[in-house]
């Protein structure tokens, strides 16, 4: 499966581990990444805040560049913000011929053009769980993550807003409030997945820069939540989330006089580990909150964590509403 690869600025440097692990696991998964030639920043949430048309043009340039990969009509972005921006631009251009015209007038100044809908934009996680599939992944697991309690953390922009079938971008990826695809993936890898209520809450984005206390509070909530659920680590799929939860965890601890030590890794790194790859080769060690103690759990053989026996309901106890079947 060939995809145009849009790493995004974060993966160049602060999230290099994400880039490395992505490339590392894509090989065994049969995902062929063709990096978009001379791609540029997607503008994150900043450009759109100052300049509407320019930000769409900025983003559209990448889509135009992607079209230079002949015969590859799918773009994969590992960064949720990039993913959202690319999709949003494609959608709005698709919906408004006027916008599309303007953007293309701008692109023309750079000698390029983009036809909305001409590429499918997917998040890396989407490609892994849907295009590759859980079964294929399971088959390749050589070192199941048994005994590792993981809080799956999606953050916002991969599930919200749901751009649905916009511009042929397929069906909804997952529930906007309580997504499950990462949970399932980690289960497939053998991990013990925490039913994490804050899984789709916000990491604070750029808030640490705008209002430190606000930013830190949002980070605190998620880190606290994970530790309340006795998670060994948080696994995420967005460089911004990782940066906030990992790099700012120390600052947050100082701000609130707390002492959380919650490692934050990328789901690609977890896949790599489960596939028996070498931690170093997956960029593990780059994180500021040390993950080794947590990972030690899977280095050695740990007995299957026996699930606590279902206690027989007391005779007063009222039954829980049963949840609908997985569909």
């Amino acid at each position, binding site marked *: 499966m060939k995809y145009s690869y849009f790493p995004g600025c974060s993966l160049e440097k602060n999230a290099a581990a994400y880039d490395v692990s992505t490339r590392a696991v894509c090989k065994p998964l049969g995902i062929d990444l063709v990096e978009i030639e001379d791609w540029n920043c997607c503008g994150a949430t900043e450009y759109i805040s100052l300049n*509407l048309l320019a930000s769409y043009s900025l983003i559209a340039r990448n889509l135009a560049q992607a079209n230079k990969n002949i015969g590859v009509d799918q773009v994969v972005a590992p960064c949720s913000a990039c993913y959202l921006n690319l999709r949003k631009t494609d959608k709005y251009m698709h919906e408004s011929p006027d916008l599309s015209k303007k953007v293309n007038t701008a692109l023309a100044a*750079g000698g390029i053009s983009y036809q909305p809908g001409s590429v499918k934009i997917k998040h890396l996680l989407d490609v892994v769980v849907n295009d590759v599939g859980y079964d294929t992944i399971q088959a390749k697991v050589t070192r199941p993550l048994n005994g590792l309690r993981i809080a799956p953390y999606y953050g916002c*922009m991969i599930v919200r807003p749901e751009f649905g079938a916009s511009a042929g971008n397929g069906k909804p990826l997952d529930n906007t409030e309580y997504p499950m695809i990462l949970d399932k993936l980690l289960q497939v890898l053998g991990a013990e997945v925490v039913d994490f209520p804050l899984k789709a809450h916000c990491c604070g984005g750029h808030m640490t*820069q705008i209002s430190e206390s606000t930013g830190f509070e949002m980070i605190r909530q998620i880190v606290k939540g994970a530790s309340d659920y006795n998670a060994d680590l948080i696994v995420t799929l967005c460089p911004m989330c990782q940066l906030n939860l990992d790099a700012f965890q120390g600052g947050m601890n100082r701000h609130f006089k707390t002492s959380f030590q919650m490692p934050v890794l990328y789901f690609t790194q977890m896949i790599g580990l489960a596939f028996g790859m070498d931690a170093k080769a997956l960029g593990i060690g*780059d994180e500021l909150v040390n993950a080794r103690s947590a990972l030690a759990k899977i280095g050695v053989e740990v007995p299957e964590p026996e699930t606590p026996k279902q206690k027989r309901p007391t005779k007063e106890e009222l039954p829980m509403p049963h949840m609908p079947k997985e569909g």
Partner: protein
Amino acid sequence: MTETSVSPPVNTISNTSFLEKVIAATPGESHLELCIQCGTCGGSCPSGADMDHTPRGLFALITAGMKDTVLKSNTPWFCVSCYYCTVRCPQEIHITDIMYTLKRLAVQEKVYDDSTAPDFSKTFINWVENYGRAFELGLMSMHMLKHNPFGVFKVADMGVGMITKGRMAFRPTRIKGINGLKAILNKAKELEVAA
């Protein structure tokens, strides 16, 4: 005196026109005119606690035509783009997009009280426009020195950590097609002004 201290003039042409202006400046169907003031947005907002007006409150002010109060509000700048409000709004109002619109209007009219956030965006954009890629170290240091010099020490270890871990670049990457990009962005800005 600002119009906040007088009772807001409702339903004069200028009032409705501000609502219309906001709607017009927002891409797609924003549905802003449909707000029923239920507060789902304000309740959902992760940074809502620190906003001077909740999104809902802001929409009431917009409808009332209290332009200055709205554009001076820190609410849009505290929006973290988590899109909870957007997906939960019972009236399907594109709230996050409207926040972007309000930021743009505020910058155009230069009427925000606290320049922290706008400057952050500007600094960010600066790198992007000149290099084609974002540049955290430059961004953070420049921004922090300007707005939160002491914050630098607070997160100093983080900065150090990032650097020792090789997670921070010292110079940004410049894309090959930077001139093309500049041309594109300038053209886009022309078009926007024209519109």
